[in-house]
């Protein structure tokens, strides 16, 4: 299935959600091939992108595998020309260092940044960099009048129907509605969203407004720098358990976990270790996730001042979709195998032995998936990219 489409892909008619069996007969003519998701590579490239982004800000909030918010100094933010230069520099740097194309949206708050993202993305005139306050007010009004209120981040379709009842149809309607009235109709969150559309920063960074279903991140900057492996271990354990409970709440399991820590970019001793783990089986088990998260610990150096840590779960799927694996798992768990594996890994390295090899019988579908897997070129020594010499 087409799970993501670049501009080039869309141009040849590869629409999101189109199943492979429909495309297959035309594959050769279109010059396309099917590959499995390579989450190890995505996770590692995402980590690299975030590490480069950290060079541009004092406060980076990794929002998902492919989105992050950077806080810009308030005084600098009023200089629209400087902001445009900053956006271009971020975009060009990521292109040059990592070959990753990104779009940069700079706005007074996250609601407007997301709005700019959704709209300006389709307008080639911006060329991937949009500074909200540098656009003409008339253009902004036209845009907000033309877009339905459901295009606003955090306004669900359920809410849209109720808003329509009050005559709020476009984004502009919500932005110009009387805030106190909006709070009476709905709640304080919708009121704050309305305020943000006017350019006020009203919603804190910690509030989850998305409900993205394909990935999950638990990451925080520490209030005080953590300098010990034990401290990082504790933070990762907490995050893993938090992630597990979020998965359970959504009825999901994860197949890939990325665990990372980082110093501030503004310290002398920079260190950004990370590890991406393909979990032995799709799981939401806090014990499994915690153990996987701890695979970062050998890379943690005592004495370095870590400013943040986190875990990211990708390759999410509905729980129960791979039921046949469960019996294997429980039998091994009951026999104390997981403890044994843990100690073997401690002695011989984490790739020496894993539950997946003990429990997974390569069925035909599993083999096919391996076949389509592209090299995990940045995380696996045996799968490095080759260059012609």
């Amino acid at each position, binding site marked *: 299935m087409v799970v993501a489409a670049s501009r080039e892909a869309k141009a040849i008619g590869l629409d999101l959600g189109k199943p492979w069996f429909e495309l297959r007969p035309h594959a050769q003519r279109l010059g396309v091939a099917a590959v499995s998701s390579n989450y190890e590579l995505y996770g590692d490239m995402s980590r690299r992108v975030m590490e480069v982004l950290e060079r541009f800000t004092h406060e980076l909030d990794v929002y998902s595998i492919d989105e992050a918010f950077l806080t810009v100094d308030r005084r600098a933010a009023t200089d629209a020309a400087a902001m445009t230069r900053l956006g271009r520099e971020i975009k060009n740097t990521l292109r040059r260092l990592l070959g990753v194309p990104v779009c940069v949206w700079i706005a007074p708050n996250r609601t407007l940044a997301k709005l700019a993202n959704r709209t300006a993305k389709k307008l080639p005139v911006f060329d991937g960099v949009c500074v909200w306050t540098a656009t003409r007010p008339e253009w902004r009004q036209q845009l907000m009048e033309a877009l339905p209120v459901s295009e606003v981040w955090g306004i669900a379709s359920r809410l849209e129907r109720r808003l329509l009842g009050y005559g709020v149809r476009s984004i502009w309607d919500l932005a110009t509605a009387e805030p106190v009235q909006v709070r009476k109709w709905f709640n304080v969150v919708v009121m704050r969203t309305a305020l943000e559309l006017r350019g006020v920063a009203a919603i804190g960074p910690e509030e989850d407004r998305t409900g993205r279903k394909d990935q999950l991140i638990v990451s925080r900057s520490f209030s005080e720098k953590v300098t010990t492996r034990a401290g990082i271990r504790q933070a990762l354990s907490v995050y893993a358990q938090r992630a597990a409970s979020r998965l359970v709440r959504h009825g999901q399991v994860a197949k890939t976990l990325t665990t990372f820590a980082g110093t501030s970019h503004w310290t002398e001793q920079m260190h950004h270790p990370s590890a991406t783990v393909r979990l032995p089986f799709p799981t939401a088990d806090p014990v499994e996730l915690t153990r996987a998260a701890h695979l970062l610990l050998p890379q943690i150096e005592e004495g370095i001042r870590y400013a943040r840590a986190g875990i990211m779960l990708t390759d999410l799927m509905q729980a129960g979709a791979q039921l046949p694996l469960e019996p294997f798992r429980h039998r091994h768990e009951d026999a104390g195998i997981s403890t044994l594996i843990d100690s073997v890994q401690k002695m011989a390295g984490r790739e020496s032995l894993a539950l997946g090899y003990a429990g997974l019988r390569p069925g035909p579908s599993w083999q096919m998936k391996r076949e389509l897997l592209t090299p995990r070129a940045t995380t696996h020594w045996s799968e490095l*990219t080759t260059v012609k010499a």
Partner: protein
Amino acid sequence: MLALHPQPISPEVVAVLLAAPTAVACGFPSPAQDYYDGPIDLTSMLVEDQAATFIVRAAGHSMTGAGISDGDELLVDRSKRPRHGDIIVAIIDGELTVKRLALTADGVVLRSENSEHPDIVVAELSDLQVWGVATYCLHHLR
């Protein structure tokens, strides 16, 4: 006489030399203890920009003269600006290719370091797609 018949270093001696001098037998503290910062970390020594550095593996014999053999690993730093004489990884006909960059009067030449392999002449500098600059070669000695 001692100099003529040097004692081979026994494994125990090596172990002592490599281990952190934490245990001190007598009352006098080891003067080296305060200076021990942990073992050498190859990544931090060899990689300047960790986000922008990639490891790739050479396949082929065109660069043996530069010390790059078939199967050697290369550290490629994409943050470096390519200069004349650098070993670079370029994209040639859609393929990642390692060559030595030469900026000559006649234009850009991607030189092979093996007489059996031809150089590649790039008509315009703008046609050259440099993927990254190779900074180290991990040459396998056995």
